């Protein structure tokens, strides 16, 4: 069975500080990977997607970047956090043109 893990569970960071969030998928080779952002009480917005290692496409510009250094790993990062980056970050995977399965999420508070 496939499992998806996100780290850290939660972060409190200062404005202007760097950020790195991680996501790992086990039990599935070459998955499609996605990053979503959810404002508190809001809907989900897709940020990035990746079809293969080393290739990441940006969907929305939020002063964030993403990388896929390994087949099973997806990283979301920024060098300078903004207050508007606060929210819930969700990683998801899919086998292709199919259902997306979400991780447990990382809650980020920027002060």
């Amino acid at each position: 069975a496939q499992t998806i893990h996100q780290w850290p569970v939660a972060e409190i960071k200062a404005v202007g500080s760097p950020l790195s969030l991680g996501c790992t998928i086990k039990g599935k080779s070459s998955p499609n990977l996605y990053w979503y952002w959810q404002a508190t009480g809001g809907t989900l917005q897709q940020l990035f997607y990746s079809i293969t290692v080393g290739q990441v496409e940006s969907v929305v510009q939020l002063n964030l970047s993403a990388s896929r250094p390994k087949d099973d790993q997806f990283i979301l990062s920024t060098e300078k956090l903004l207050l508007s980056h606060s929210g819930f970050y969700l990683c998801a995977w899919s086998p292709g043109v199919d259902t997306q399965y979400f991780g447990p999420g990382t809650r980020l508070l920027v002060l």
Partner: protein
Amino acid sequence: AQSVTQPDARVTVSEGASLQLRCKYSYSATPYLFWYVQYPRQGLQLLLKYYSGDPVVQGVNGFEAEFSKSNSSFHLRKASVHWSDSAVYFCAVSIGTGANTGKLTFGHGTILRVHP
């Protein structure tokens, strides 16, 4: 551009009552349709999905949804709710073609509260 509308921001029902959560989409073709549930401080869990065929699809925990092409809708139903069904429910659509085949567009969600 495709869009998803969940017209009810909040729904409150009593335990044991029937439930319908509404979802309408706007897209020229029939997209892939999904319902997800989000419990407090958790990620999303898939309830059910529709790709084609029988317009009524069964999901987990007694949920079902009915696709209507004429109404561009995909309403979620449950015959008898339990207090543990209290959560936020998201309807989502996917084009299924193009460069970003996995681009899910979500509605704003419906907060369901079930009175015990």
